[in-house]
């Protein structure tokens, strides 16, 4: 493909779509957040409240940051798929192909051939969850530490699970609660409802606990530093030297490792719940039966 000025212009545009949201988020954070020190564990900052029935709609940092992530991922997609060619793959094309092939492989291995179309959805979960958690690297509020955000994803997954369970008709779905004995049906109902709740709380709790522990450790180190090194003369006594280095290690674990791991766990659980809830054998039988009825009536 011939690279001309237009190509480079579009490249820059896509890169800007990718980078500007993050920069904008940082600017917004700096402008709206007062400088703070000490222990302060709070939820997302509220930007505006729109009156709605039942409950007011609150636009907070989590929503804004989620949109920023979506915008950045959109820019990334545009950038990676810019100038695709079948014969001469560029570096970014290799990355794009790798993403697509790996997610398709993952979905195929965990869900089987029937759910082939699920790879963009799983990729969306991985990207949204992973990048949302990784926003903490920029000092931004991670939307995944807001219960509402993760609950929304878990409910969507729950809807999908139920939809695929109902593929064989509502009667089959209701009957499945009586397995293995009808006596256990209350437990089955509870476990059904527990699925999205546990998914939401697991993800949210892991990310939030990372933030909480990081904050507590940072505050603790600051206090310890004041006790141990407070006697140093002049300004040296005011600098919390112990805060250097140690929080970074925690950040590597809680922000990077835990964030990516939780995204992976959420995606894995989604795949497993959806594919295991789907009665594949019954569905095949049903399809066969319908086909035979159709052919007989003809």
């Amino acid at each position: 493909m011939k690279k001309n000025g237009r190509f480079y212009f579009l490249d820059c545009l896509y890169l800007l779509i990718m980078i500007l949201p993050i920069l904008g988020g940082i600017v917004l954070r700096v402008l709206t957040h007062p400088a703070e020190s000490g222990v302060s564990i709070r939820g997302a900052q509220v930007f505006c409240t729109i009156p709605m029935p039942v409950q007011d709609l609150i636009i907070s940092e989590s929503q804004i940051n989620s949109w920023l992530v979506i915008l950045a991922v959109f820019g990334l997609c545009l950038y990676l798929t810019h100038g695709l060619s079948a014969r001469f793959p560029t570096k970014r094309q290799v990355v794009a192909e790798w993403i697509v092939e790996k997610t398709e492989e993952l979905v195929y291995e965990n869900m089987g051939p029937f759910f082939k179309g699920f790879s963009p959805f799983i990729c969306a979960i991985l990207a949204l969850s992973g990048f949302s958690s990784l926003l903490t690297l920029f000092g931004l509020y991670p939307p995944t530490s807001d219960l509402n955000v993760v609950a929304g994803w878990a409910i969507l997954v729950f809807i999908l699970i139920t939809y695929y369970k109902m593929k064989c008709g509502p009667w089959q779905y209701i009957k499945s609660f009586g397995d293995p004995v009808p006596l256990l049906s209350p437990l089955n109902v509870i476990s059904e409802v527990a699925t999205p709740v546990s998914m939401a709380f697991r993800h949210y709790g892991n990310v939030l606990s990372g933030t909480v522990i990081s904050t507590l450790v940072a505050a603790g180190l600051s206090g310890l530093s004041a006790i141990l090194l407070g006697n140093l003369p002049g300004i040296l006594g005011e600098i919390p030297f112990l805060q250097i280095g140690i929080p970074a290690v925690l950040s590597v674990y809680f922000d990077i490792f835990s964030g990516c791991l939780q995204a992976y766990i959420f995606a894995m659980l989604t795949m497993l719940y959806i594919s295991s809830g789907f009665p594949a054998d019954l569905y095949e039988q049903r399809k066969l039966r319908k086909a035979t009825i159709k052919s007989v009536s003809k």
Partner: protein
Amino acid sequence: MQTLQVISVNIWQILISLLNLLLLFLVLKKFLYKRVRKMLAERQAAVEASYKKAEDAALHAQEDELAWTKKMQEAEVESSEIIRKASVRAGERRDQILADAKEQAAGIVRQAQQEAALERRRGQEAMKQEIVAVSTLLTEKLLDREINEKDHRKMMDSFIDEIGDYHEGNE
């Protein structure tokens, strides 16, 4: 500015988040998966096409090879035929040459024999003459008398003939 509690539930936020995930799903599907899959399909088609081409070429080559081996076999048969014919002809020619040579040799031998026989006869004749002359002279001298040369010669001839016959019988 006000902040939310650490744990707060808001159904509208939940709904927004749900829609966010759907939105990102659609974005990824449209802008990443669709494009990459289309490109992969194109590549697959190109690869298939080139494979097809290669297979066609291989098939063609095989046909060519078959034709050529057939031709080679024919040529071999032909060449062996030619060689066979040539050797047959050469054999004939050789026989002819040999026969000619033999004939010639026989001719030469016969001629030589004839010549030899002629020579011998001539020699015999000369010797006869000589002997006759010598014996005549001898007898003339020995006997010292006039003899009828004519009678004498006759007698001598018969004598020499006897000797010659004897000679020939010994040979």
